[in-house]
């Protein structure tokens, strides 16, 4: 290793990682060991200690990963992907069911969520596939389809585990990875347009129509291909119609309730709207400076649902207010920005794709989690990276980050052989 290795290492990322972790630990402590603990069973009160253990383990793993060669990620990518797929499939049969989802594999005394390993495995495998051979870029329709299939495999298996939230996390990898490997801007935009149109249609069908028109114009201007513009327009309008049809006709009543609760929580404040109202109330009532550590009444009086996992941001915002909440958000933004900047500086496409894949996964988590907590997307239960309680999630996120650090730290070894 280089004598001046410490100058090469990205200490800033470690610092940001530590501060986000600190926010998480503070939130978990407040949510499980504050005055609220009197209403919580003993095993929940142990969550903080368990999380500390996982953080410690993660530090060891991060350090360990820095000693591996970046090339080994590329070499072992398919193997890791295959093993991860095997584990995920076996979870389907031998897994432990928690909260209705069969997504945990029990090994000895430790439970592990196999979909977590699947994330980094998928990113590595797809990045490797898209960059391993010459002219295999996504402009080539066949390779684009294969890459998409590689991403959809885990999505389907995890869906079968009945863990929709985790499965959804993989979807954004498709447009982002393909976009990075050369997919034209217009087509990439066309690929993500259903998400934007669908989201706006849920709020109001008129927004959906407006989004369709705007996106169609932009796509047309980018690609200058009339058939793509026309497809975009027809497809977008069909989506608006089908979303509205699905909302009223196809979805089960409890799913309709959840959507309705997102659009207008005060329709049923004691029922479907309860979680959203209580979460928003926790954040809002924190005010600018917060109610103080372990002083948040929404948290301590148990009004918050899932307050040490999915709604942990509410705990932080309630205790530390706008100041603490925005610091946490900015730390997360900084973490992602730093990785992307690192990716720009690296010359190896494989490393760049892996980093962007990791960033995409982390970003999707943050988007869905913060969006749910602040009532801007329908409630979908996914953890906030490095903040929510959950060992396997924390460890797998740390591994993903460690791989990014490694690819940046030892980028010369990659480019040497590239």
């Amino acid at each position, binding site marked *: 290793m280089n004598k001046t290795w410490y100058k090469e290492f990205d200490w800033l990322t470690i610092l940001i990682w530590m501060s986000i972790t600190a926010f998480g630990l503070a939130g978990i402590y407040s949510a499980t060991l504050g005055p609220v603990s009197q209403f919580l069973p003993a095993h929940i009160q142990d969550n903080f200690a368990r999380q500390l253990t996982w953080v410690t383990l993660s530090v060891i793993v991060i350090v360990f990963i820095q000693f591996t060669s970046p090339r080994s990620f590329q070499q072992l990518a398919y193997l890791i992907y295959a093993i991860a797929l095997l584990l995920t499939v076996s979870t389907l049969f031998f897994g432990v069911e928690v909260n209705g989802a069969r997504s945990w594999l029990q090994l000895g005394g430790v439970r592990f969520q196999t979909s977590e390993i699947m994330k980094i495995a998928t990113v590595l495998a797809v990045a490797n596939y898209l960059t391993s051979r010459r002219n295999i870029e996504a402009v080539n329709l066949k390779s684009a389809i294969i890459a998409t299939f590689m991403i959809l495999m885990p999505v389907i298996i995890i869906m079968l585990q009945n863990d929709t939230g985790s499965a959804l996390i993989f979807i954004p990898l498709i447009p982002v990875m393909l976009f990075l490997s050369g997919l034209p801007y217009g087509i990439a935009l066309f690929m993500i347009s259903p998400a934007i149109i669908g989201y706006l249609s849920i709020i109001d069908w008129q927004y959906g129509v407006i989004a369709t028109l705007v996106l169609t114009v932009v796509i047309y201007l980018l690609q200058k291909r009339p058939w793509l513009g026309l497809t975009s327009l027809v497809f977008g309008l069909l989506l608006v119609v089908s979303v509205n049809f699905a909302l009223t006709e196809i979805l089960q009543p409890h799913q309709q309730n959840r959507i309705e609760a997102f659009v207008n929580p005060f329709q049923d404040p004691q029922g479907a709207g309860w979680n959203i109202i209580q979460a*928003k109330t926790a954040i*809002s009532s924190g005010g600018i400076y917060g109610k103080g550590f372990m002083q948040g009444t929404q948290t301590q009086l148990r*009004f918050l649902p899932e307050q040490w996992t999915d709604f942990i941001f509410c705990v932080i915002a309630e205790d530390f207010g706008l100041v603490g909440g925005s610091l946490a958000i900015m730390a997360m933004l900084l973490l992602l920005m730093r990785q992307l900047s690192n990716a720009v500086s690296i010359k190896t496409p494989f490393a760049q794709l892996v980093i962007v894949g990791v960033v995409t996964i982390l970003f999707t988590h943050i988007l869905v989690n913060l969006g749910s907590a*602040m009532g801007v997307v329908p409630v979908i239960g996914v953890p906030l990276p490095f903040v929510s309680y959950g060992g396997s999630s924390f460890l797998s996120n740390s591994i993903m980050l460690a791989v990014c650090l490694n690819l940046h730290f030892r980028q010369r070894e990659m480019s040497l052989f590239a």
Partner: protein
Amino acid sequence: MTHPESSRRLRTSLRIIQVIIALVFVLFLGRLVQLTVFEYDTYNPISERNSIRRETVNPSRGLIYDRNGVLLVENTPIFSIYVTPTDFDRSNIPLLASLMETSEENIQDALQQAQNFSWHRPSRLFSEVEFDVFSRIEENIWRLPGITHQIESKRVYPANVKAAHVLGYLREVSDADFRTTNIYRLGDKAGRTGIERTYESYLRGETGVQLRRVNAFGQGIGNYSEGILDLAPVKGANLEVTLDADLQRIAEQLMVGKTGGLVALDPNNGEILALVSSPDFDIARMSGRVDPEYLAYVTSDSTRPMFNRAIATRQPPGSTFKPIMGLLGLRTGLITPETTIFCNGGYVRGRLYRCTAIHGNQDLEEAIMNSCNTYFFHMMNRVANTIGLNEWHRLIREMGLGRINGIDIPSEQAGILPDSTQMDRIFGVRQWGLGDQINLGVGQGVVSATPLQMALSTAEIANGGYWVQPHLVRAIHYDSGETEFANPGRQRIEWIRDEDLEPVRAGMRRAVTEGSGRFYANLASVPTAGKTGTAQNPHGRDHGWFIAYAPYDNPQIAVAVIIENGGFGSVSAAPVASLLIEQYMNGEILRSNLFDMMLNFVPRDSDIER
């Protein structure tokens, strides 16, 4: 892969992704600012409402004392165990059963009932548990999630006085009361009958408010702001009633086993000294946990225990009506004290109206003493032919008959004192004649009165012609220390002249010393005046009446007693009334053998008077 164009495009793509991510984060920051700054006023109140619960604190209900300061009604804490079924762990049933010292089956049954009511709201699992059971539950409450305990209050009656129809009882407020007022909460109790009902607003007091910090499960976790915002409840006002507890008790004992009612009042101010309706019920058993069988008996038995005969039974007053007739005759000039009428054993006017005996020449005093029907048939004939029925009605109505006198407990009845309109209604327009009126002169026919009205008219004769407002509460003692005294109405009845009262009183005095009252009502200890009466009852044995007041010179008590189906007033009602006078004037019963005899009184079919 490595050619410059491709890597430039990759860098651009990375920048685009950076920009998109940054934009989303800016949106999140904006949303955070929106929530914490601009919507703070919307959501912070929700947060406060969430964590603070307004609990109402029930005030303790006012106590009731008798005229001598004897405590009649007070409160006692009762201990209740509540369960919220959804929070209750069924595996705790054996523990709960052992703490409650009951069987597991009992617990399961009670739990089932609670579940039927609601899974999520607390229901009473057991009420009125023993204090030591209650404290055992309290010590172990942490082992029993879903179980809560509460101290409530019920009425107790320490004075060994039932006074069921006077005091009344409490019941949970009806749905209608609950909705139309904003005073009560569901499950609150309010006075349903008697004084408890009339004086509900005084007795109830004002509910207090306690702010408590609670969690999402509604579990209280302490006071809010050290209780500075709490509002202490205001204790209900204590009532001082006009009843004499000893007299009331004696009266109740005398009426056991009989059907009827009695009213004893102070003729000077209308204070009710005793008021009994029989059969009655045990208000202590109507307090707190009520045995449903007993409730069914009280509310729907054919003997109608709830019916307050003392103020609501309407019976012909019979001969007790004669003193009133005498006053009326003197005032209207139809007779003078010296006017005599020859009694030949009856009065013939179209038909024969029977008298009880051949009395010979009778003046008013003698006619009252002997209860001579002939005299009053004769007089009523003259009333009908001169002043007319409507004038008769107007004058007697002023004495309180045929109308509500406004006693301060519910369900008072007016009785019947007919005028021509009413006669038209009863018999048909112009379908009635003299024959239907002559009977009225001896308190028979279509005239009826309540014991309260007869006691009141007796009081008017005793007190020199004043209508006095009959009432049961003489003072309201507020918790603040202030006292509000009852200000009962007292009104001179203009047409009653002092000189007219003399022969009537003398007749009533002689009715006791020489007439039909001489057997049981002629007290050695107190000079008493009175009049017996027997109301004809087409449905069975006649009803016995007795009205009396004493002492003769300085009246302190006026009594009216009716024993339904008791036969003659002289043997049924008169002993009861005279024993009450004896008790009230001497403070004790002197003729204990008569008292014992009356406890076991059985009406006889003898024929001494009519």
